[in-house]
């Protein structure tokens, strides 16, 4: 796929058996007396979709925020490809190759698609126009944005010059995912990407998620929608009461079994 920044080459031998691209051990985060995370482990491999499910207050968001630098965990360690990392701000996680698609999408509605893809990462023209006058390379960004969009097989978006606010909900979501995919060196985190979408648009976004995985990225998907999770996830991390209640797969457990684990009606042995 087109790389917009200098993406490190993906090792080809990495699979679910290899070294995880992102790994967390014993994450703890408390808010006063409330325990948000109570020693959570998580492993994410290249080329897999790891879904994170859990009831409200189970610690899904806290877990994701700890992994993406929005919170600094009180204890525990995070490694990427075996190297210990410390994220103090979301920018740190982004610099390490973790892109997050927020539920609110974090797009500027009045700006066009290319500007949104490159928001806070604008590229300047070569030569003195760029270095002295700090002039943007609008044409180049537009072309590369178009390439990034078409690489993801998003056919519903054609013109990179239109304002994001004139797009439908699914198209906006696609822009946000494309931004993450274009810049996400190693990991893309999607927070409830289908929550606000209709049936058809949800399907398109799920296709995008699969395509990110096929490109070799590690994908974390937070969702309340069990059919969507069972459709795209390779493994499912079930979060319950600040802990990981277990990791299952769509083949090993049915949806209702997953929900039972999530709510504590049944417990995984071991």
């Amino acid at each position: 796929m087109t790389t917009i920044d200098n993406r490190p080459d993906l090792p080809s031998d990495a699979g679910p058996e290899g070294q995880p691209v992102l790994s967390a051990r014993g994450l703890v985060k408390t808010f006063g007396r409330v325990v948000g995370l109570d020693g959570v482990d998580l492993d994410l491999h290249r080329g897999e979709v790891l879904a994170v499910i859990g009831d409200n207050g189970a610690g899904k968001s806290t877990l994701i925020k700890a992994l993406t630098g929005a919170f600094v965990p009180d204890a525990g360690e995070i490694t990427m490809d075996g190297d210990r990392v410390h994220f103090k701000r979301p920018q740190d996680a982004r610099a390490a190759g973790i892109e997050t698609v927020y539920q609110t999408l974090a797009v500027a509605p009045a700006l066009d698609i290319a500007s949104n893809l490159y928001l806070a990462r604008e590229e300047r023209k070569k030569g003195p126009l760029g270095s002295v006058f700090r002039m943007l390379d609008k044409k180049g960004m537009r072309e590369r944005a178009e390439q990034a969009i078409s690489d993801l097989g998003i056919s519903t978006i054609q013109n990179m010059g239109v304002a994001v606010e004139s797009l439908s909900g699914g198209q906006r979501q696609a822009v946000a995912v494309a931004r993450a995919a274009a810049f996400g060196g190693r990991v893309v985190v999607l927070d409830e990407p289908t929550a606000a979408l209709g049936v058809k648009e949800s399907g398109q976004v799920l296709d995008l998620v699969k395509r990110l995985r096929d490109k070799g990225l590690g994908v974390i998907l937070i969702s309340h929608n069990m059919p969507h999770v069972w459709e795209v996830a390779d493994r499912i991390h079930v979060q319950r009461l600040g802990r990981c209640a277990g990791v299952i797969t769509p083949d090993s457990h049915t949806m209702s079994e997953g929900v039972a684990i999530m709510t504590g009606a049944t417990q995984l042995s071991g």
Partner: protein
Amino acid sequence: MTQPRTEAAPAATTEPDTGSATKEFARRQTPAQRIQHLLHAHPAISPALILVLTFAMFTLLNERFASPTTISLLLQQTAVIACLAVGQTLIILTAGIDLSVGAIAIVSMMVMAKVSIDHGAPGPLALLIGVATAVAAGGLNGFLVTKVKLPPFIVTLGSLSIFTAIALLYTGGQSVQQVDMAPLLSWTGEVIPLGAFPITTGILLVGVVYLVVGFALGQTAWGRHVYAVGDDAEAARLAGISVTRVLFSVYLAAGVIYGLAAWVLIGRAGAASPNGIVEANLESITAVVIGGTSLFGGRGGVVGTLLGAVIVQSFAVGLFLAGVDDQWRLFAVGVLVILAVSVDQWIRRVRA
């Protein structure tokens, strides 16, 4: 609601009810929608249209309106407000508002003049100190908005009084005449003779301000960030933009522009008076709004603002030439403001 419809119902081919109307809406654009999209993509179109109509109307009323002399005078009268309106545009683009614009310009102007006559500072130094004063005043507004996190309306309402009081206390209410100051301070009043169409160096300076800010907004990353912050500050933050830094830089840049406007004002008025341009606040906001920049932030630009400033001044000149009572100018400007905001609201509802 006479008949139940479902989302998945196929487009009705025969019945011209609301069902097929919705389908039409989704598929094809009505002429009104096409206009809406056009205005959405190019917000300077509506003020440009209004300006053309204004010129046509006043030329019909009195053909002297279209003469080079009148237009030259019009530009000279517009220069100061047009310059202040650039700073106002920047702040309104971030969904803020600056009520202290006139007060900052006056403090800056009085500092320039007083430093020159009281301390005998050479022209460039007096100018520098005056502009620096305006930057400091803008910086104070910016600090209160970004660090103390007060709404811009409240901050600048307060600083309007503060800066006005400072200007009056500092000068004792006394004006400074041009002849007493360093010549550089009134350089902006120099006339460049272009035959029947003389312009002042002040107009050129304002033109340069427009070019620089227009370039910065349209062609640099900083400009993108100003729009993004004004559009949705939280989204901009999540995307990795330092919202505080962008906002603060906007207030500082506005300060520089107000300082330059103060310089243009000395040249225009031939004196520095602490009671000058009391109407600057509303007129600069009016120019920005008529120019199509949204008071809700994130859309608009300086081209529209320039058109807006010229439109407002055209009414003053045109109605005078037509022999109409000057109060009608106020009336007309009021109508234009309401019209402009209505158009903006309509454009903001645009959907594909």
